[in-house]
Every structure is written in C-alpha cells, then in structure tokens.
C-alpha cells in the first residue's frame, strides 16, 4: 500500500451524511460534494455542475444520481457524467469507507501532505 502515492484524508463519518443526501467538503481546489445513497453507498464529486456551476451537493439524490438544484441537470455520482440529453461531466473523487469512517483522495493534497 505504501507504494501508492495517493493519500487518503479523513473527512468524517458516514452517519454525518443523511441517507439520500450530501454534505460538502471545502478544499483549496474548490468544493467537493460527498453523497450518500439510500443503500449507503458513498460517492464524492466536484460540487460544480457542468452546466452553470450549480452546487450539486444541494440537489435531490436519487438512485446513484443527483439532480442539480439550479436547472435540473441529472449527474451520475458514479461516473460524473450528465444523464439524458445533456452533455458534460464533473470530476469524480475516490472515496472509501473504513469502519464507518470516510476518506477521500486528492492528488494535489497528497504532495502537500507528504
């Protein structure tokens, strides 16, 4: 595991996020939305809709997607791709759950934290 340059950064617990909801994490590179689905899967994506920059973490979470609160684009939490007829995508951020604790990985952060 040590060979991997990515650093996992603790951001809190799964319970901190309501099911079918999201919280955001602020970073120097911008905000990240961390989402929890009805089935307790957790995803992290840029909190910036590809359409007009709406805060995706404020949208309604359904299945593994979120609907942007500004103009109703639907973004896949798994791939970051806009769904349906809309075109665009946001960056997805690796996230893992260990013992109910949440970690995200940001490359830029990795270099800084080492």
């Amino acid at each position: 595991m040590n060979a991997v340059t990515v650093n996992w950064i603790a951001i809190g617990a799964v319970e901190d996020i309501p099911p079918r909801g999201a919280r955001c994490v602020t970073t120097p590179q911008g905000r990240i939305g961390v989402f929890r689905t009805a089935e307790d899967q957790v995803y992290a994506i840029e909190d910036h809709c590809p359409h007009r920059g709406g805060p995706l973490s404020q949208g309604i979470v359904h299945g593994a997607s979120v609907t942007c609160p500004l103009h109703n684009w639907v973004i896949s939490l798994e791939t970051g791709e806009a769904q349906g007829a809309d075109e665009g995508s946001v960056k997805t951020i690796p996230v893992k759950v260990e013992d109910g604790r949440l970690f995200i990985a940001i490359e830029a952060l990795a270099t800084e934290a080492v």
Partner: protein
Amino acid sequence: MTEKLVIIGNGMAPGRMLEHLFEKAPGRYAVTIFNAEPRVNYDRIMLSPVLSGEKSYEEIVIHGDGWYIDNGITLYKGHRIVAIDRAAKTVTSDHGVTESYDKLVIATGSMPFILPVPGHDLPGVLTYRDLDDVQAMLLAAQSRDRAVVIGGGLLGLEAAAGLRERGMEVTVLHLMPTLMERQLDPAAGYLLQRAVEERGIKVITKASTKAIHGDGKVESVELENGTIIPASLVVMAAGIKPNAALAKETGLAVNRGIVVDGGMRTSDPDVFALGECAEVDGRVYGLVAPLYEMARVAAAQLAGEGQASFVHSDTPTKLKVTGIDLFSLGDFADGDDREEIVLRDAASGVYKRVVLKDNRIIGTVLFGETMDGAWFNDLKKKETDISEMRDTLIFGQAFQGGSPMDPMAAVAALPDDAEICGCNGVCKSRITGTITAKGLTSLDDVRAHTKASASCGTCTGLVEQLMALTLGDAYNPAAVQPMCGCTELGHDDVRRLIKAKQLKTIPAVMQELQWKSSCGCAKCRPALNYYLVADWPDEYADDYQSRFINERAHANIQKDGTYSVVPRMWGGVTSSAELRAIADVVDKFAIPTVKVTGGQRIDMLGIKKEDLPAVWSDLGKAGFVSGHAYAKGLRTVKTCVGSDWCRFGTQDSTGLGIRIEKFMWGSWTPAKVKMAVSGCPRNCAEATCKDVGVVCVDSGFEIHFAGAAGLDIKGTEVLGLVKTEGEALEHIVALTQMYREQGRYLERIYKWARRIGYDEIRRQIMDDADKRKAYYDRFVFSQKFAQVDPWSERVSGKDKHEFRPMAAVGFKEAAE
C-alpha cells in the same frame, strides 16, 4: 398566363378552398381577398372556447399573415364589397378599391337572425357570429351582471355556457318545448336542459320574446306571458340566414341562399359561391363539414376538374361545452316504418337512441357517452345491415363480437375508411397512414399534417387513440401523462391511491404503486412528499431529502449558490424596530443586496449558507419569522391601507390581510399561493390577479380566486360575496384546503380551478356549507402540525448538518 381570382369573404370555407387550390394548381391564379372583418382567417367554430376562456384568439387563427404573404395573396382587411359589375368583371369595396377578376368567388357567409321585436336595436343587444361579437360579450361579462340568450340551439347554448363561465347570471330563452329540438329528441333535450341548469344557467322553454326594454341601453327582456327578465346583455342566437344580398343585387339567382350547381357555380359561369351563403339542391348548410366539402369541390372546379361535384351527407352535431357530451346524427323522428333501440342509465345520465329503418341506422342520438358516435356514423353511412348485432347494437362497438373491448380495441376495429374527424372529413387510414409516412409523434403534428381534430377538437380523443395504436409505446397520450419516468400513473391516480390504500410513507407509495425506480427521482419525490404531508398531516414524517433545496434550507438558492432571506412582514406592515433589525443584520453579515419584493416585504440576497442560522437568530430576536418565500406554500398576503387611512377604503383590508396571513402561514400547498386584500374596488393591492384575492365593498367581502400574473396572465374568477371577515376567512381557508387536497404538485390554483371547473368550486365552497366546514376543519387540523417557525427551529440546532461543511481539508492552517 396568370388568371385573376377575387374572393369576397375570408372565412373558413374560402380559406380551405385556397389550400386545396394551391395544392392542385399552384401559380394558376393571382388571388385577391376582400374581408369585411379586419383580420385574417380564424376558426369560427372555436369562438365558444374563446368566449369561455379555454382558448385565445391567437390559438384559433388558421392562416396567419405570413400565409397570405407566402402565397402572394392580396388581402384587403376591413373592406366590404358594395358592388359587383358582372359585365365589366369588377368588384368595388366600401373604401373605393376596385379590382377586376377572371373568376369571382362569393363567400359572404351568413347573418344572424335578429328577432324583429321592439328594442332589438338597443345597445347591449348582440349577436354571436364573429370575434367582434365575442369581444363585445367579454366586455359586457366584466360586469358579472345578468345576461339573456335568446335561442337554445347549438350557438345559444355555447354562448350561454361561455358567459356563465365568465361569471354572468345567464338565462336562456327557447321558443320550443325542448332545447336543440332540431338535433335532439325530447328525452335528450331534457337531459341537456338538466346538464345546462346544473351549470347554473336558467332555461325557460316555450318562451316567446315580446320586447326588449331599456332606456338608452338594455335593461330587461319581456316575454309574451308578461314575465320580465332583468338583463344588461342580450345575445340573439335564434338562427342564421344566408348572406345573399350582394349576389341578389348583382342579378344572380338567389333563393334562400345563392343558388349554385353541384360544381359551386352560380347562374354566372365565372362566379362561384360557397359556404353558408350558398344553396345547393335546395339546401343551405351551417356546419363546417359540408362547407369544407364545398371548398374541395370549388377548388377542383377552379383547377379545371369539371367533374368535381358536391354530394349531400348528414353531418353529426356535437356541442362544444366542456363536460356535456352530446352527439346527434341523421333522422330520428318517430314513424310507422321505423324502429328504435333506446338505452337509459339514469344514474350516470346516459341516454342513447338509435333509429332503424329496414335494419339500417338512419339516426342516432347520444347523450352523456358519445364514444360510439363515429361507429354509428360509419354504420349509417355504409347502410350496414345490423340485424346480426341487433341485441347488442346500442351498447356500442365494444360489445360486438362477444367480450367487451377496451377503447383502443374499439378504435382498432374501425374500418380504414371510417370517418374520424367530421369537420375536416378525415378518415382513419389517412391519419394512420400519415403518422407512419411522416414519422409523426405529437398530436400537434398530426393536426398540422392531416387536419384531423384541428377544427372543433371533439375527436381529439379518437385521434390520440389512433396515434397510440399506430405508434405503440412511442406515444404517450397527454391525458394520462405519468408523474415522471418512475411510474405510469398520473398525479390524480397517485393522490387517489394514497388515500384509498392508506399509504403513509414514500417507500410505501413506491412499493404499492409499483414504482419502476428504487427511490424515485427529483420529479416524483417532492410531489409524493407534498401529497403525504397534505393527506396525513399528523402521521407523516416529512422527508427533507425529498424536498428541493429551498425548502430544505428555508431560503432561496441563487445562481451563485448563495441564498436569499425574506422575513414575514404580516400584511406588508412593518415598523422602525423591524427595519432597524434588518439594517443591523445587513451590516453584520455584509449582505450585498437588499431589495423590496413584489409581495410587500424585504429580501436580503447573497447570504452564505453557513451564515443562515446566525442571520435567522438575529432576525428572530426582533420578532421575525420565516416568510416562506421559498415554499410551495402560503407566501404573502398583500394589502392596501384600507379604511384605516384611505378615504375610499370600505373595510379594514390591512387587518383582514394580516388575519389571513397569521391563520394560514406555514401551510404547504401544491404550488405557491399568493394572496391580496384590497379595501375597495380600486383594488390597489391588485387582488384580481392573485391565487386568492379579496376585494372589499360596502356590503362585505368579494372573494376572488384563480388569477395569475406570471407565465400566464389571467384575471380572477369571483367565488362569491360574504358579509363578515370571519366568513371571508372561512371561505378562503376552505378553498385553499380543497386545492391542497386536489391540486397536482406544482399546479397553481388557476390551472387546478380550470381543470375542476369554477362552478364546481363555487358549489362546494359557496353553496355547500357542510363541505366548506369540513374543508375548513381539515385545514385547521393540519395547521397544528405545520405552524412551526422553521427558522427558530434551526437556530435551536435542527438540521445542523445542512448548514455546515462536513470538513475543510488541504488548507495550510487546517493541515497543521
């Protein structure tokens, strides 16, 4: 060489004739039209929906100005032809324009028959023929006064229904013992009268008008038996007569109408006549189908197809009054050589009668259920021997061949040449063929390409069924528009099933109603959450994750992700202390924009989400609560200063506004609800474009509803007049509760009311005291759980997670 074609009249018949002509012989004629009306060609049979408010003039235009330009037509609007010189082959208009012609078409239509009684020429006596009449009626209807319609035929009843819809007290006078006696037998006439009366229209049959009285304008109508009926508007709809005067002056053969042969030629071979002014084989016509047939024949003749000839056929009659289904066809008089089959279902108000002669249908009357009209029409037209299905004939097509069929199967079973659209003579195969050939998927496309259901619209259902049949799953008829992609069910079905099956959670709804997705989508979840909140106020636990961010954060999200905050200012009244508190909050949180809203309060824009609880805390200390400016719920009650200050004020409009707002705040509704109370009819609070409004008058409070001043603009309907503030509150609350229980999510009051029917709402809220009380009680019960200030809750720590980032990572200071 181009020939000159001059047309007198710009109605539906010549319009249709030109369409055919341009198709058959493009470029052959240079066309000039003289229209006595100052406008383009519009759908005259849709005047009734314009009168009732279901359509606008723009929606019924058949040929816009562009069409005339595209086809090189010279259109003289507002020019009446005063002379035809057949020797010189010219026509001259009242504005002095003279045009020469090679071929002339007279399409002057018909004139309303005016009863020659004393007072028939008083101002306030109108006819019902064109858009000017409709506009005059709409103007008169604003008084919401009394109207008398003379004539209980098709036009008269449509006019009466429209005027009633516009808020007038309407009486229909009909000379004969039953309504529409030319198209209906007495039994159906009776049912029709009952249905008309249920809409609040008074009907007097065997009523012979003696005189119209008034000093300078209409004041009343007197009958032969001495009855006096007060009225400020009288509509003459006692029939029409062909407008053949011009033709007669110019020496053409005229009988009842302008006499033409089967090819639409008058006694002068270069002059044609068509439409309501023409008489073929001793018959004149008023329904659109035969007039369109004349148009087809005239176009063919003008294009040089000499064999084209007009053939008479019976046309079914349908009434265009929403909610009254009526169909009549052919001959249904009693006779020794005739048999009849009758079906009556008193409970559902259905009456069907088929008249047979030699085992063939010669007439049909359907009331209350007209689905099988097309089928009976087809059997009659083809003179089908019905002895085989005699026993089940009256039950309709669905019952033939043993087991009942669903409506789709019934349409599928229609033969290819069955007529679907009577107005435009479009048969089934023409529609299905065009859908396939052109790849049409929407009703509008089908209308554009085939004209089916493009005139009176009564066959829209059939056309939609044909589309469903042809396109299969690719077509979703609008009538059963599903809530969203997660279900096949529409909003109404979902609401009904939530109550019927006692479904009290979103997962229960999704499970029991077989949702196709695991946890819904951003369309259905907020709707379901609302329905459950509204239906089970004490039991349902509000699902915040199914609310839009505005209702979750109790503020309005802005385009940059910041929020705006609007505290409640009851009735739009504020104080120095409140304003000072707002000023302090603005300074403390460096709020960039402060704006006065249209609802008489103050909006603070550009607040960071993290700051919201602290902003609310400070506002709360000054006594402010949430203004719900973000909610599908009660927003504002706008008021004027009323009798407290205004020299015109009749009541305490400010006080009533505050009372309503304090009573109703916090309630969730299908869509936002904005109210207003004006202290006098000058209406400074603009109550007549609100969801619910009150206009105070000396005698009490006039309650209004179903206005709109957003995407659509619509004046309110009057619910009724009540005497006291307490009654006003009770009626408004009951109305709102009715809407809360029946509205579709995101459907504003004016759309809901149009769907339910203004009269039905008046009946339940104004006339039925028990119903009103029950609605009122249910609202009050629901308020026990709803009137909690969401801001103070959040200041006390509720939903903390909503307003704070989960973590801040990667920042220098955070890392160390």
